Every structure is written in C-alpha cells, then in structure tokens.
C-alpha cells in the first residue's frame, strides 16, 4: 500500500518519518521528501548506515549527493537501525517519482518518543513554500 505523504511527520532537514507498531515495539521508516529530492536534483550517490547502529535524534547517519552538492542525512528519531534499503543507492533515479515508497532509506526501532520538533504535513508544506 502506498504511503500517504499527508500522514507522515517531517524534520526541518527534510527527512520524513512513518511510525508503525509491530509486536509491541515502535518502528520508524525514514526517507527524504519529494521536495528535497527535487531541490537536490540529479542524485548520484547515497551512503547508508550499518544495520545495528544506534542513532541519536539529529545524528548524521549518511549522506546523499547530487551532481553539485553533498548533503548530510540526519536521523529524526532515536533508536537502533534494523533495516537499510540497500537497493536504493543503485537506483537513485527512482527517488524522483517515488520518494515515499521505493524511497525509504532505513528502518529504526525506536528507543524514545518522537521529538516534538517533527512537523505535520501542513507545517512542513509551509516550510517548503517559504524556502522555495
């Protein structure tokens, strides 16, 4: 089932977060927004973290690179990396059309609640329109 961008939470640094409960634990799937992909334009490289790594809120977990620029990726949540989308770095072009489904980057088992700083879709859209 396709992810609905309007139901996700967003970090100021353009990562999206989708939280699901599985077996009593909370997991967050993380990617970067369609707006961010469009802004970056011409993606050429992505660096993913190792499975098992513990991430803090705001910690840099990898980078995405366009023809022109390198952009760090920051974790919007705290927890352990339980999966990474290893097919993504070789198929970055697909991010242009599918930032929210194929474009998932990693899955984190949450060790803390989501930070209050995460925005809902409306607030994030407002940030993007001001940036554009």
């Amino acid at each position: 089932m396709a992810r609905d961008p309007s139901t996700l939470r967003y970090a100021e640094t353009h990562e999206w977060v989708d939280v699901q409960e599985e077996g009593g634990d909370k997991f967050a799937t993380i990617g970067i927004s369609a707006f961010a992909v469009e802004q970056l334009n011409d993606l050429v490289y992505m660096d993913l973290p190792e499975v098992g790594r513990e991430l803090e809120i705001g910690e840099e977990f990898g980078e995405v690179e366009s023809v022109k620029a390198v952009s760090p990726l920051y974790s919007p949540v705290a927890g352990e990396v339980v999966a990474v989308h290893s097919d993504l770095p070789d198929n970055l072009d697909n991010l242009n059309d599918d930032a929210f489904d194929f474009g998932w980057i990693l899955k984190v088992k949450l060790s803390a609640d989501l930070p209050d700083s995460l925005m809902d879709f409306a607030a994030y859209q407002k940030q993007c329109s001001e940036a554009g």
Partner: protein
Amino acid sequence: MTTSSTNDPVENPSTPADCLQTPLDAWHREAGAKMVPFAGYSMPIQYEGIVAEHQACRNSAALFDVSHMGRLRFDGDHAAEFLDHMLTRRVTDMVPGQVRYGMVCNAEGGVLDDVLVSFLQTPSERRFHLLVVNASNREKILKWFEPHLADFPTVTMSDRTELTAMIAVQGPMAIEVCKKLFTIDPSRLKNYSAFITDQFAKPVIVSRTGYTGEDGLELIVRAEEAQRVWENVLLAGREAGFKPAGLGARDTLRMEAGMPLYGHELDETIDPITAGLKFGCNLKDRHFIGDQALQAVVDQGRTRCRIGLLPTGKRPAREGCAVLTADGETIGKVTSGGPSPTLGVPIAMATIDAKHAKDASFQIDIRGKTTEALPTKLPFYKRPVAAS
C-alpha cells in the same frame, strides 16, 4: 538533510543589493532558473537540471549567459606591446581575427588570471584588442594593469563589461544553427578566431571559442541587444534541441574537458607550468612579467603538477579532498571533482607532488574514507571528430 557544498550559495535568494545583474537577468528568472550570487553577479546555476543541460551541450547545443566575465578593450598604438608585456602568451605577432589563451602572472610567476586575448578589426578597419577575464578577477586585473599602463601613454584601457553581454553557444549543432543568424557565416571561422559581424545591423563579436570541450561560439553584443540575440539563437535551435544552461553544467562540462578554473586549478600560489598550461606561455625571445620565474620552473623542473584521476566506485571526490600515494602518504589535493554526466563515473583533477606524477595508482580521502583512484590523461572527454 541540508544542502551544502564548497561553493554552493543559498539557492534563489532575493537578489542581494550588492549583486550586479546581467542584461539577461529578467529572462533567467522568467525561465525559472535557480539564481545564485557568483563573483558579484546574480547568475543562473541551473534551469531544469544540471545533467539535462550538460547533455544538451554534448548532444545538440546549450546557451550560457557569461556576461559576468570581464571584457576589457585596449586601443591605441602599442596596445599589442602592452598586452605582450602583461601576458604569458605572445601578442605582438597576432593578426586581426586571432584569439589566444594565456595568463597574467605576477613577477613570482603566480597566476593572477587566465584570459583570452582577441585582436579584432571593425568594418571601418579600426583595430583593437579585447581581453576576456574571469569575473572574480576583473577588479584585480584592472588594478594590476593601471600602473603598467602608465609606461604605455598611447594605450587606453576601457572596461566594456557592463555595456555588453556575452553569450556562449556550445555544442555539436552550434555552428550549423548559427550559420543563418549573422551577416557573415560563422562556419568560416577556424578554432580560436573571431570576427565582427552583425545581426539586424547591430554589431556582434563572434569567436569560435568556448569552455565546454565542444565546438561552438562566444558572442559579445551590446547589453540592450542581449535578450534579442539570446532568444534568436534559442529559437533557431529549437528543433535541434538547444537549451539554456547554467553555471552548474558549465562547471561539469569544463571539468570533463580537463580545463582549469581560476580559484581551483589556478591561483596566485601556482604557476602556469605547474598547472599544466605551458602551451599558454611563450618564453622564447620575449619579455613579460613573470618570465624569469617561469623559465626557472622550466629549467629546474616542477615540484608539483596537475593530474586527472578516476576514483573507483560511485562516490565522487570533491575539491579539497587529500590525495595520497598507494602507501598512504599525502601528496596533494583535489582541485575539482564530481560526477561526470557524460562518462557516468566520478572524475577529479588534483595538484600533487611532481615526483609521484607517474604513479600507477593513488588514494583519495573522501570525507574520512579512502578510495582508490587511477590516474588518467586529461581531458576526460574529447568530442568525437566530425567526419567531413
């Protein structure tokens, strides 16, 4: 995620008050270009995307607004002698219609700028020299020339930059499409030559020069004619797939062509010989500022040199990354690097200790991770020679 890189200013700022605008500024904004401050000008970095614009240039043609580059005109008796004294390249034997690449050096041989000098003749047979300098160096070169001009009282220098615009039309289709746009057919021009012609009775300086590795033209027109000429070329090239291209594609194109960019491969701490630009220096039977320093480098050999590198893997090396020997000894750094849209792999240019110039392999430290890199001959990309 935050977008950042060594030379990426904030995108789409409202034009800072101290930013100059080229005569095509309104056109760029109308076309949806991302504008960035660059060398004191507000310039388009890209329209639809760097890769698409890069490919348009390699496959058809791309138009670049390069009006930010400085255009200095020299008139009067002995203008050739003056420029000959200031440039690494011989100017005194140029005939009307010739264009040459050279450098302006200080007495120590450090590069103050790399330039194109043209010797031009108007339809009324007035002759003058035109120097195209880098935007970021225009003020510096004007200041550098002034005291030396005092020794040449018959020579006048005038800065034509803001009175004119400069448009580069680069790509395999450029000449074919531009054939019908000017009174004189530009296909008659040899590489590195120029003439003054007109479009609808308005003068245009047309040069067969460029900074992309492709065949093409550079046009200089009066500022008020810029938009008309730009739109005429785009319209004439519409079916051929001409596109406007920004500074982003200009950088990836020149990098593939192995061409130096001032502030990256060239600056005041490096001499032309070290930078691999000996072809732009005429040392025999003439004197110019910096000649002894350059001769000393030739006589004693370079201590550093510029090389091309192909990092293995997908991760591009960027400017500033350290270059190491296969054994891990740091010997230099990357001066320009990024993905090559034409080759589909990362490419990099680096300045390294000359004693390692012939090493079979290197390493590049890309933000804390070392990657193997293989040396390669410059340029990375050479345009296919058209069967004629």
